[in-house]
């Protein structure tokens, strides 16, 4: 049957999507942490630089960034064997890290300033206070929002199909070219994305409850739990990028 053939084609694409997502997520988390920490730096120029990065990459439409890097940077780095997969990783990382940096910055700034007092009065310096006292308190509450960024990365990685990265959306487009059945193929593609993302939505929701419990606060249980429909669950999750795209 057609559908099995389609699925096997799409699965090959999905592997690339997964690679794209994992690599981008790792780099995004690192870059976002650096950008968030830079924004609370005592050095003004460091703060400004990080601020500019965040403002810049939140303002550029991701597709425009893909095209700019692909056509602008692609021919140059291509000579060193860097293909469009890495261009896609770069574009996604620059863009998503700007959003995640805002999440982390908010979390860092929500750590009471008196924690600084306590840490500094022990004689700890700025980098140690950030590393030992601030980040360990700020990052766990950011986990649910981070999972949502990962969901965003998976969805946004579909744009990589437009710069010839053979991820799952491009696989579907190739199938359409062969079958002339766009409606059905793209429906299957949508289901594939749904099958990946809905569990992640649950994970985001679940992590929210776990984190809230760990922090000793009462989690907002309204709408949580298995009895809730997947769509309702994903609607509850606060998307830090809501209204910006």
């Amino acid at each position, binding site marked *: 049957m057609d559908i099995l053939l389609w699925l096997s084609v799409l699965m090959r694409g999905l592997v690339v999507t997964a690679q794209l997502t994992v690599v981008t997520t790792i780099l995004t988390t690192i870059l976002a942490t650096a950008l968030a920490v830079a924004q609370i730096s005592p050095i003004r120029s460091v703060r400004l630089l990080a601020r500019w990065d965040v403002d810049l990459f939140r303002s550029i439409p991701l597709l425009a960034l893909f095209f700019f890097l692909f056509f602008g940077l692609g021919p140059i780095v291509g000579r060193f064997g860097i293909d469009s997969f890495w261009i896609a990783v770069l574009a996604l990382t620059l863009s998503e890290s700007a959003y995640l940096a805002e999440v982390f910055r908010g979390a860092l700034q929500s750590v009471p300033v008196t924690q600084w*007092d306590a840490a500094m009065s022990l004689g700890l310096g700025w980098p140690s206070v950030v590393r030992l*006292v601030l980040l360990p*308190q700020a990052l766990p509450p950011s986990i649910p929002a981070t999972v949502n960024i990962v969901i965003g990365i998976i969805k946004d990685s579909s744009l990589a199909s437009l710069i010839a990265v053979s991820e799952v959306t491009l696989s579907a487009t190739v199938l359409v070219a062969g079958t002339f059945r766009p409606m059905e193929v793209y429906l299957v593609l949508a289901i594939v994305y749904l099958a990946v993302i809905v569990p992640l939505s649950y994970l985001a929701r679940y992590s929210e409850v776990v984190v809230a419990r760990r922090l000793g606060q009462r989690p907002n249980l309204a709408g949580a739990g298995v009895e809730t429909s997947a769509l309702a669950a994903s609607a509850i999750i606060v998307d830090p990028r809501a209204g910006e795209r």
Partner: protein
Amino acid sequence: MAPVPPESNADDAGAVLEFRGLQKIYAGHRVLRGIDFAVQRGERVCVLGPSGSGKTTLLRCTNLLTEPTAGSLFFKGTSVGQWPARGRSHVNLREYRSHIGMVFQHFELFPHLTALENVVLGPIHVRKLASEHAKERGYQLLKRVGLAEKVHAYPATLSGGQQQRVAIARALAMDPAVILFDEPTSALDPEMVAEVLDLMTTLALDGMTMVIVTHETGFARRVADRLLIVDDGLIIEQGPPALIFESPTHQRTKEILAVRMRD
């Protein structure tokens, strides 16, 4: 640990801390208006005064969590800074702070760390002690403040009094030359005040140098070698507690002590 009793330091006389002409102006408001203040080794100084009189700012200027607007600060006879002209001296600020313990009104334990981890954070990351050694000492300190069985408990699971005792152990772990207490019992439920005051009394008997901002007049009278009465950014009266309680010379002192006595 084991602070040296003051008697054995007669030859080591001299102020651990000394402020001359300390002023602090916050947004045009003169919080401290010229304070001269010295703490001798092994001395227990209690600071009394109404809310907003500048007591907390005095402590925060002492370990430079707040930068003074004017004045000079000396630590064991060495200049730490002179304001406004020169600012902080070349002394290492972090090194200086590591010798000045601080206990806060709201404990300010690190919530992501256990009691023991809170206590050993400074020794490991500031004093660079080996982890095992620091933990052994940390355990001894927690035992000393009566929390041997709470070594691995997180702050959120401890009572206010227990948290404050961990905070005191955290300060002690740095072997400070002096510990500053900023209203250490003000945030506690009444039934927990005693356990913290008892611990502080023990420290005082051990010869620890302490500066204590407090509203606990009974404690101040029992423990202090010297009282400072602070009002509106100035020290209006100071001396041995017996003298100040029996015959205060300043009308404001009578009012301040009267209010506190009624509490």
